[in-house]
């Protein structure tokens, strides 16, 4: 197991290196230039442009730019072109904002998908099963921004309450308890919306897995032994059905960045996804590349964790 861990670690490192080159090239070679050095801006003289280029290292050969970029990134000296703030500081702040949304969303997804999926499988063909199937397909096929607007409109008009942003504006001087509760309230709708798609998908998986397991011989045996229904379903069935999901757990990590762009934009949530989106619009290369790099790291860490988890729960994998 130790040797696997070491091997896997170096493999991932090599992958990361190639990702860094490819993503760097994709961003730098894409047509268009950062808005600061847009030659169409009539306010800029040729000297201004040259000065900006030099400041952003854009006048150097690509491989030097690559080296400088990652050197600055790792030494923490990288600055956003848009407002000259250190990238890592910005990312850290935004990351924490996204993290909470992500944690709550994931909690909702996983806590809801299992009960729903399991009961649908156990009561296969029942009204509950059919209606959850229907709802799941509806949720999968309708885009989340559409739900977001409907839900915002409904909640705001019915309860006259603020749902946009991380907290109700003007709450800065309220007592801490209210501030915390207000922040939790502002997470409710975006996290539910973020979770909806996941619930629909995951509950389907759970149902399928459960169905497969309860047709196994050992379930029949357990039933024949005269064990209670719950005992059969949850101890013998559920535990075995759980196996594939352990690996999925590692793979949700990258969702921290990619999964939230739309929801964060709609809810004016100052998170990573929105920052990345705005950076792309402004062609703020340092931010785009840093987020890209973090996403790559998260994916690799995710796969690494799922490999490890798999080894833990399924001894057969250990080679």
């Amino acid at each position: 197991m130790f040797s696997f861990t070491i091997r896997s670690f170096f493999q991932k490192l090599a992958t990361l290196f190639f990702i860094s080159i490819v993503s760097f090239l994709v961003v730098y070679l894409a047509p268009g230039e950062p808005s600061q050095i847009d030659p169409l801006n009539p306010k800029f003289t040729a000297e201004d442009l040259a000065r900006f280029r030099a400041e952003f290292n854009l006048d150097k050969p690509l491989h030097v730019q690559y080296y400088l970029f990652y050197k600055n990134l790792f030494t923490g000296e990288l600055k956003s072109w848009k407002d000259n703030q250190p990238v890592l500081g910005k990312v850290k702040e935004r990351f924490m904002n996204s993290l909470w949304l992500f944690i709550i969303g994931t909690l909702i997804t996983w806590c809801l998908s299992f009960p729903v999926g399991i009961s649908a499988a156990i009561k296969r063909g029942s009204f509950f099963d059919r209606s959850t199937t229907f709802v799941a397909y509806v949720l999968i096929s309708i885009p989340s921004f559409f739900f977001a607007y409907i839900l915002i409109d409904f909640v705001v008009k019915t309860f006259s309450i603020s749902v946009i942003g991380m907290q109700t504006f003007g709450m800065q001087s309220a007592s801490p308890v209210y501030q915390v509760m207000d922040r939790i309230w502002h997470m409710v709708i975006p996290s539910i919306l973020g979770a909806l798609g996941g619930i629909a998908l995951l509950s389907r998986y759970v149902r399928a897995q459960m169905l497969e397991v309860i047709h196994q011989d050992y379930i029949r045996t357990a039933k024949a032994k005269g064990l209670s229904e719950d005992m059969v379903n949850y101890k013998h069935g559920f535990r075995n059905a759980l196996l594939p999901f352990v690996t999925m757990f590692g793979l949700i990590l990258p969702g921290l960045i990619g999964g939230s762009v739309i929801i964060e934009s709609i809810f004016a949530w100052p998170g990573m996804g929105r920052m990345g989106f705005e950076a792309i619009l402004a062609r703020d290369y340092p931010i785009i590349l840093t987020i890209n790099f973090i996403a790559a790291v998260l994916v690799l860490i995710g796969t690494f964790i799922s490999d490890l988890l798999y080894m833990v729960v399924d001894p057969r994998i250990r080679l």
Partner: protein
Amino acid sequence: MLTKKILIFLPVLIFVILLQSFFWAPTYDEQVRGNPHRLEEFITASSGDAKILNPVLNADSASSTIVGQVFDGMIDRDEELKFRGRLATGWDIYEEAYFYINPEATIDGKRMAGPEEIKELILARRGKGIIRDSSLQDALSNIKNIEIIHAQTSERDIQLPGPDQNGDGLPDAVTVRVRLAPPPRLKITLKSVDQDFFKYLEGILGKGYFETFPSDRYAEILTKGQEDKLSVTAREVLPAIEHNPVILFRLREGVRFHDGHEFDAGDVRFTYQSIMDTRNLSPRIPDYEPVKRLEVMDKHTVRIVYKRLYSPAFGTWGMGILPEHLLNAEALRKEAEAKGSDPDTFTMRDSDFNRRPVGTGPFVFREWKSDQYIALDRNEDYWEGPPNYRRYTYRIVPDLLTQEMEFYGGAIDDYGVQPHQVARLKNDPRYQHFSSLSFGYSYIGYNMRRELFRDKRVRKALGMAIDTDKIIKYVMYDQAERITGPFVKQTDYYDKSIKPLPYDPEGALNLLHEAGWKKNSDGMLEKDGKIFAFTLITNNGNPIRKNILTIAQDAWKKIGIDVKTDLVEWAVFIGKYVNTGKFDALVLGWSMGIDPDLYQIWHSSQTNENQLNFAGFVNKEADDLIIKIRQEYDFDKQVAYSHKLHRIIADEQPYTFLFVRKATAILDKKIVIREYSESGEEIIRRISPTKTGNYTYYFNKWIKLATSPEFDTE
């Protein structure tokens, strides 16, 4: 079974934790929940961030909103749109009129009347009341003082237009050195400004006294090769007559800037100098260009002398006054050194002051988070007493839908509501609404250089064919009113007795018949074998104008006119069509100042490329009135001239005047006006707009209550 219990219990627990937070978060009806300070904070929303918080430099509406709260001007407009003192407690406006003694003229048969004699003559005429003409008598009794000025011989450089050398199509400036040896001059101080004063004086000194003044006799051009410019130059530097209106401001004493420094006349002078300092690139330069000099008389008196009659100049003193001690050359040099910039190129534009301004206004700047909000605190030391609100927050919410949602949730008190939303929210008992006319209008403008539109009957007929009332009802959701002329509708300059054009397609056809247009076999109007056809354009991106375009096209098609329409992107629209005058007709709008000066848009001298009279409106009588209005300092006379001008323009119909928009605001009903009576008793009353529809006029007395107040229905 534990697993089953966990599977059921866990999601329930999570949802309970999440949803119970609902009972802690403030709602629209209970905005004080956990946050009693909410009532003392006013939150307004804007889709764009401010750019530069400096009254001398800003040019965008977000910046001017904030600047208006942080800075005070010398004056502003009161409920009736009359001027009211702010940093100035009072002012006098008078005139210093100058003229050169004309050696050529004969007065009462005597040649070569000297300055002494002329002075005596004028004084004598004034004193005795021997003149029958009472207006001349009035003009003379307006004289306060006459002084004789003997000038020294002097040399100076002046700039003249010369041949175009840099190839931009405009004449380049040539510097010419002149020697001047002017004759004596009389300086007559008038108690009030009188643009006709010299006309009356001619009644005494004889007709043509000023016109025949031989200015070129007293000037000599020293620059070689430029001698032919003598007469032009001489007339410019030695004008026979000169009106110098003077404004004397008395300043409020004891006013302090937010940093505690006392405001005085030096700050006023500094603000003026900052505008005129070309390195600052102030957009206010044209407003202050007519100023000849600004003198500080004492700590609380400023005297401003103007080069010429220009009545709109007074209103420009509503601009915020800068603190000299924070921005003068020394302060800027220190800032540049601290920042490591070159002090020689460091200007006010580079100063951090523009991001954390200090003024004398009712609110003190606290914080500006780019693209998020600008926060102000009330000025406890405000000379008029501190505002009721403790905080003023300007939120930047780019998305209009988000603005609306945040308003419903009580996280915004006021937002830029759209006409269709007004129709929906007007009758909601939770909100109060105010409709007021805005300072601008929409119109269809005709290019009067085109043969097609030269006949005023045609222009009138085009206007009569359009049902403007329906546009107002269906396009504007009744959030607009008809307008008949170019003045701001709620001011006295606007003549309310002028009727708008009726909707009358029949009448329109009759007018067109009179003008020679007959229907042909296809039902199209035709004259001299040519069909009545033109293109109506407007800019892309404005749905209201686009709708008007379609409606006008349809209406004109009905009476047999072939109209093509085109939507053009704004920059192209202005650059290629409007500025060059290459269009037939267009739909556009003007936003106006209160001042009745119409020179730029309607004077015949402004019809060239890149000028604003792109409709090509030329009317001698209108020109005279436009000049008279901008030179007149007497309100009643201005109103009389404006009414005349309004009538001429309404009769000529160079534009089909469509409507002026109503600016409707939707406001939380819990916001009221709170005042204290002399005995210290609290009086709560409903926010009521002023006569001119400005509901924010009493903003400093606004406050939000915890619950909706009940008022007696009035």
